[in-house]
């Protein structure tokens, strides 16, 4: 399984903070395309969003990053702390 997390505006727009998904994806990009198929909101937030930030297992990642069972994948907007 994959642990998928959504933070900040993504959590609000997508209506969830966390979900478990089967580990059926070779890369983040494959996962994103499947999530985008859920509808317009998901497509806008995840596929057509230049500002999408990605982390895999707490490290900055990108669409080409490989993922495997047990990984934690997070999607969020640009950070604004400090």
């Amino acid at each position, binding site marked *: 399984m994959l642990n998928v*997390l959504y933070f*900040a505006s993504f959590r609000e727009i997508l209506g969830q903070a966390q979900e478990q998904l089967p580990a059926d994806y070779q890369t983040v990009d494959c996962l994103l395309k499947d999530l985008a198929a859920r509808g317009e909101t998901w497509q806008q937030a995840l596929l057509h969003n230049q500002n999408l930030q990605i982390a895999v297992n707490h490290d900055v990642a990108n669409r080409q990053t490989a993922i495997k069972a047990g990984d934690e994948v997070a999607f*969020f907007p640009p*950070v604004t702390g*400090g």
Partner: protein
Amino acid sequence: MTHNPEPMFPHICIQEEDFDLSTEAAKLREGHKDIGAVVTFVGTVRDINEGDEVSILELEHYPGMTEKALEKIRLEAHDRWHLEASHIIHRIGKMYPCDQIVMVAVASRHRENAFHAAHFIMDYLKTNAPFWKKETLPDGAERWVDARVSDKEAESRWAK
């Protein structure tokens, strides 16, 4: 999420509680005699952002990734400026105008290194640590704070 009494990263605190600058500076210096310079940065909640009055600022973060990202920034600062000690505190949850949000404290033998390291840590924290701010305006409207291009520019100035 409150401060873990036995944290994996003892020099990083993500906490709801406020902090006291003197106490933190003393902790930082404890056990180090060869310190000549202590620089601290405290970020506070401004009552105005993007021209609007702000009533509440709420901070969300990504537990686990935050600590890892901050520790990476901290260790790079030690590597580049030979610090004697450093400490980062970032608060989460609801805050109000004038509240303290974040503290970076660094100690080194000479001032030059301490100034650069504290500035570097803050610039990297702003663009690399997974925190997000949401503002509540006086009419109750909420909005997520937009990332600033100027923060990205500030970060890029430290490229080696």
